[in-house]
């Protein structure tokens, strides 16, 4: 070790990934949430929460994270077109789990141009809307370390996660109809490695570690930014979703939406909450009540049978024999009119 090294930069990686087979450091036993599963056994242990910290002020928008993500996950984004901007691919896709979003903003206070570049991707919410919305048991899981992962074998491609997500992240593949997003490189984290994007990031604008360490690191960064005149610098760890395991250091934390529409106060949409909450229970109750009521009525009340008298009258009417006259009230004035 370099004993007298004067400072330590946060490096995502302290060693190269292993090539000897290593058992994953966490798995099914460490799930704290599992989509569409109510009887999940409580995890036997609590892993220390991890987090990816994206320091927007250090980001140079080079897209190394995108490149590393493509290579690690073996995805194949399309070669698209230029749309008059630097964002490419144009949007997140099932083949592009992370994306640099570029915003040119003239700061009205200084009149200086600021090129705000934000790495978009799954935020790994503590209260994940995708997981809440997901109808397929085990298609979305959350580990006690905070990673929200998609288990593609269980995914049915319904797109509910898309509606559940407050950040517009999951994308459904048109090819295999499964939902894709950043996994926080759970396979790497499970063997003690940081995510591919964080490892690649040339300026270490993306760092990865325990959430606590990342928050501490962010404090230092925020202090540096404040000393450079960014009075509103701060950490984006939105409480509306219970905090996130991907956090940003923003120069303008008072206005997250400057950064290509990062939600100011993200939370799971009340509509989604209602849909997955009240609607489900009331709906089930209503259907159940009605079904049960019918059953009970069917058992206890007499069925509505055609009586012999009815048969006689019916036959009589058919044969043109006299039958009881129409009840008077049936033919009220205008009652036969359609409109």
């Amino acid at each position, binding site marked *: 070790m370099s004993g007298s090294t004067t400072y330590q930069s946060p490096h995502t990686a302290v060693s190269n990934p292993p090539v000897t087979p290593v058992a994953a450091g966490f798995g099914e036993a460490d799930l704290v949430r599992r989509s569409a599963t109510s009887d999940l056994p409580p995890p036997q242990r609590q892993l220390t929460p991890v987090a990816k910290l994206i320091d927007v002020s250090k980001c140079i928008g080079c897209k190394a994270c995108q490149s590393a993500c493509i290579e690690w996950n073996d995805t194949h984004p399309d070669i698209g077109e230029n749309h*008059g901007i630097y964002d490419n691919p144009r949007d997140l896709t099932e083949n592009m789990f992370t994306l640099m979003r570029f915003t040119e903003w003239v700061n009205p206070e200084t009149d200086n141009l600021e090129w705000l570049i934000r790495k978009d991707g799954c935020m790994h919410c503590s209260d994940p809307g995708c997981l809440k919305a997901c109808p397929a048991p085990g298609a979305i899981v959350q580990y006690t370390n905070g990673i929200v992962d998609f288990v593609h074998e269980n995914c049915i491609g319904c797109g509910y996660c898309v509606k559940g997500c407050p950040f517009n992240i999951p994308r459904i593949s048109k090819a295999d109809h499964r939902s894709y997003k950043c996994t926080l490189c759970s396979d790497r984290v499970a063997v003690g490695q940081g995510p591919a994007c964080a490892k690649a990031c040339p300026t270490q604008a993306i760092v990865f570690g325990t959430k606590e360490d990342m928050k501490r690191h962010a404090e230092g960064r925020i202090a*540096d930014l404040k000393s450079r005149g960014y009075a509103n610098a701060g950490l984006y760890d939105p409480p509306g979703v219970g905090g996130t395991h991907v956090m940003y250091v923003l120069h303008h934390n008072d206005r997250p939406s400057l950064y290509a529409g990062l939600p100011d106060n993200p939370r799971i949409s009340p509509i989604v909450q209602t849909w997955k909450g009240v609607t489900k229970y009331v709906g089930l109750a209503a259907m159940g009540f009605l079904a049960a009521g019918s059953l009970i009525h069917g058992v206890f009340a007499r069925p509505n049978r055609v009586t012999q008298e009815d048969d006689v009258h019916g036959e009589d009417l058919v044969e043109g024999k006299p039958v009881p006259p129409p009840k008077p009230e049936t033919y009220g004035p205008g009652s036969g009119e359609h409109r």
Partner: protein
Amino acid sequence: MTNSWTDIKNADLVVVMGGNAAEAHPCGFKWVTEAKAHRGAKLIVVDPRYTRTASVSDYYAPIRQGSDIAFLNGLINYCITNDKVQWEYTKAYTNAAFIVKEGFGYQDGLFTGYDEEKRDYDRSTWDYEIGEDGFAKVDPTLQHPRCVWNLLKQHVSVYTPEMVSNICGTPKDKFLRVAEMIAETSAPNKVMTSMYALGWTQHSHGAQNIRAMAMLQLILGNIGLRGGGMNALRGHSNIQGLTDLGLMSHLLTGYLNMPSEAEPDYDTYMKSRQFKPLRPGQTSYWQNYSKFMVSFQKAMWGEVAAAENDWCYDYLSKLDVPAYDILRMFELMNQGRVNGYICQGFNPLMAVPDRAKVTSSLSKLKFLITMDPLETETARFWENHGEFNNVDTRSIQTEVIQLPTVCFAEDEGSLTNSGRWLQWFWPAATPPGEARPDTAIMAEILLRMRELYKKEGGAFPDPVLNLSWDYHNPREPEPEELAREINGRALVDLKDPADPSKVLVPAGKQVVNFSQLRDDGSTMCGCWIYSGNFNEAGNNMARRDNRDPSGLGTHAGWTFAWPLNRRTLYNGASADTQGRPWDPSRKLLEWDGTKWVSDDVPDIGVNAKPGEVQPFIMNQEGVSRLFARGLMRDGPFPAHLEPFESPVQNVFNRRMRGNPVGRIFESDVGRFGNADEFPFFATSYRLTEHFHYWTKHNRVNAALQPEFFVEISEELAALRGVTAGSWVRVWSKRGSVKARAVVTKRIRPLQCDGKTVHIVGVPIHWGFMGAARKGHSVNTLTMPVGEANIETPAVKAFLVNLEPTTAPGVQS
């Protein structure tokens, strides 16, 4: 780079000008962000575009491309006027005190001695006054009116903030803010680093751009220190290595020169290379030139090179022009005077300016040989790709032989990085198909030609037949053998001159480094500056001790840096004239009373006394040069010059076009446009997502920036009725391209000399081969002008016009 990438973390101020470090060298730029995060360093970016480097800067100032000298001279002027000079450093370590010959002067934008006919200077007055003792005269008080300092002061005095703003288009307040921040580093314990690249080199006055910054760095006392220096961020992975090894028309290895016709024999050649010190007691290391030269000749021709035949000096070509550089070769080719061309990992159809001329030139070749791991446009220059390569295939009579080579992943050897580290790497994969290493191909060509010469005889076969080629497998020399040859070895027992009974190096053993080389034929060495790379201690380029005990980024145990594993050049200047480091917290060298102590290799004799032996040991003066004597073709001081195509005139001489000694060919004179016809000012660059024309072949990088575009300001877009993402046509005197328009706030029109200058940014990358979308190439537009000193094409500033159009292949 004078310093290493890791050393940048020691800077207090980083100036990125003439480059775009974050985009072109992201992982090196990491050390800028480290300096910012841990030292509180500031980053200044001066660029025509608000680049991705600018996006993380503390201060950004716009500048018109090609006007950097005015800006830099303005900074020097500011520092002098405001007494922001590191005086002790300037007085001791620069030639400020040297007295210049009578007769030297500067007027109307020209130095003394200009000959308009020859487009050249008579540089005889650009030198020091030499005293009777044979040494240059100096005035340490700096009072002499013709001492360098006073001449410099006078030379830069016209570059007032107003003048800078007028020439460069930089708002005066922004220039002043930059000047103020930079001037702060004149404090002995404040260090600034300059990071530059092709934004400075690719101008007809490229070398002077760099000189201007180097001079500023010298008067601020920032050269030789940790966190300082002049850091050229070089392009390709081994462009430094190929330059060091002299794979250029005018070079031999280790910056030995190719002889010229004026040097028909070895004695004449050596006579102008004595490098006698210009001040008493100075090192003037080039005095060892003959040792390196003879050892080089021995490496080339082995036993055949002997004292009797002047070490085979005759075998070397003698140049009749400064260089048969790439532009000259294409000019000759276009004149029908070149028959064959070999492109090894080079794609001139995309890379050399004035594509129409390049295509015409290649079409006149009898044969073209390409060696490349990938398809190149050059190898298929004859193939019609519609408007992306509209040629008449049948009429092209060039025979093309395309050879598949290995790429890095299948190869082994060393690469020299920008910080001069020679790093060894190993092969990881099996080459595809029948791809072969370049070494095997070069060996096969040599051996087969040799066979033919042996059989048939022919033109002067001696250098070919006698070329030293005693490799284990001559058909495919091994990387380690070649590396050992570069390091050099003793050909006989090398005895200690002080004690002849002592053998320093037994015959056949590797020399430790170039200090053991001799000019009596007893040693051989392929490239003296690399010597030490592979000695008896083994392959030092493969060392992997990444410890850094000082914590200051020296990493002396990691691979090998030339020369002698030295990590910071001129590090003798990191201490004051008493040998005390300027900043003890960033100590690099320190004099302990008898010797220099450092975790780096001192760039000065280890027992050379501070104050007596000056640290710029490669210079005859022992000090650095604010005044370059006659060593630069275009002036001993940098002076503002306009590009050959410019929207404005040179304010110092409105008659003057471009660099008065910049190289243009007669046949190209008609290929320049003027601002009436081409009102907009374009510049070319590369995007961070791409690497030149290679990553076209990579699906990932192609997806990250898929399509050719140009960048223009919102104002220019409004002026021409262009919307973001629409197609525009951009054309210069030399050709026309179609591109998507990126309309951005990051480019703004500049006010220069009373005119509004609209800037058009044109990135390189696209062509007609590979995975990326087909696209037009920038070199369709650029000018075939060579830099005055080194003939680098001036492709960073040229005039264009622009209008909305339809997509390629769609008729408007």
